[in-house]
């Protein structure tokens, strides 16, 4: 049986495929860059992958905060799925970045570079997140602890970044997010290919995220044999961060 979501997902798959093909075509057609030659074409993979990774991990963080406030199982599913997807794009960012670095700087790796180092540390940190997730069986404890870990990571990763940045860095400045807009540093044909690349990556990420979400929803439904709904979010003790709980009636009941 096909549901509305199935059809939507298929449609999205087609859009993603089209964007990827268009992006590849543009990248193949683009001329080599003035000083870097064809190596610069890695830009069309590296930058979109990095943006997508940060986007996914950002969604993961917001969902984790949402979980800590409302303790909703849906927030936990969103958080973990987004982080899983984010880790994959982090790997793509790191690998493409290393290849590019080898071609341009002459080095696979530079320990003085803030973005390389903070991305790598972030990657290992989220590996820890995934390991923790696998180790906890109780869904409520797992959701709570993983949400806390995601929040700590969010607090600490900027510090990691700035601590590595303390050295002057070899990495070029930001290409897109600059006050004067990207046109000032990039020729138009590069800009178009890059834009399409970003679109393709974000579309692919969304596709992966929605599929992963569907999967975790099915897993949760399968694991819940209680008939009481997911065993998360109600109870006797105080809510996590002072927000309202989803619990039923409270003080001064009929017997009181």
């Amino acid at each position, binding site marked *: 049986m096909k549901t509305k979501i199935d059809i939507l997902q298929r449609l999205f798959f087609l859009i993603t495929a089209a964007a990827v093909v268009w992006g590849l075509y543009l990248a193949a057609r683009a001329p080599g860059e003035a000083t870097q030659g064809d190596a610069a074409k890695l830009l069309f993979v590296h930058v979109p992958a990095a943006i997508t990774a940060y986007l996914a991990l950002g969604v993961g963080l917001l969902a984790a905060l949402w979980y800590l406030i409302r303790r909703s199982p849906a927030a936990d599913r969103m958080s973990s799925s987004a982080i899983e997807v984010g880790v994959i794009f982090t790997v793509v960012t790191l690998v493409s970045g290393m290849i590019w670095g080898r071609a341009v700087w002459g080095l696979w790796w530079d320990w003085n570079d803030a973005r390389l180092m903070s991305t790598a540390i972030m990657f290992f940190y989220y590996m820890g997140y995934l390991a923790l997730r696998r180790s906890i*069986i*109780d*869904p409520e404890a797992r959701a709570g602890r993983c949400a806390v870990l995601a929040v700590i990571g969010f607090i600490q990763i900027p510090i990691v970044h700035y601590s590595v940045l303390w050295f002057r860095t070899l990495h070029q400045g930001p290409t897109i997010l600059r006050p004067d807009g990207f046109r000032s540093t990039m020729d138009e044909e590069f800009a178009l290919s890059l834009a399409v690349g970003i679109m393709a990556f974000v579309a692919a990420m969304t596709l992966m995220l929605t599929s992963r979400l569907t999967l975790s929803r099915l897993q949760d439904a399968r*694991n*819940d*044999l*209680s*008939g*009481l*709904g997911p*065993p*998360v979010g*109600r*109870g*006797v*003790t*105080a*809510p996590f961060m*002072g927000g309202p*709980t989803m*619990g*039923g*009636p*409270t*003080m001064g*009941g009929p*017997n*009181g």
Partner: protein
Amino acid sequence: MASHPLVRFEDAGYAAAGTLILRGVNLTIEPGDILGVSGPNGAGKTTLLRLTATLHRPTSGVCSVLDADADTRPEELAAVRRKIAMVGHFPAVWPELTLRENVELVSRLRGDPPSEDPLRTVGLEALERWKASRASLGMKRRVEFARLLTWTPRLLLLDEPHAGLDAAAAPLVDEVVGRVAANGGAAVLVSHDPGRVTPLITRRILVSAGEVSEEIR
């Protein structure tokens, strides 16, 4: 004011990791009650006790313990928990600390005033400098009862209290339970063997396959 129940379960259920452990629990515990809870292994007795101790939250329904429930703020909850004592199935001792330190630490954390030597009362004064890792199960149990001698909880929850205790120590249980009930508190004693529970029991409850029913005497 009419007597106000210490504990009130309303259609409470508890499920962990997708398994339903307790369902549809309706139960009130009034001041002075001494409940004997019995039932086969795995019926949910310990879970019922942990719900009553606020250590678990029900996944459905209401469980109000000493007026603490889902809306209670953390600071108030800590104050409520301080009025509850639980002696669980496994003894709660720090193996690296001596028996005396094990008793003292808890009363320091609770902020209780110093009282006359509780270790003497439970007959452990000669062994007070032993590390708890050397002590037998019975000695650890006595340490737990020594902790209960320095204050009077509103709710006393005992899981198989006689396990590991010799016959000479059994009156300790009666004494502690009696004192709690006399001071307007209530006690819950879990045992799968109701015959051995203290004679002070005023109500009996049967837990079986996740459901709780009152036993008619």
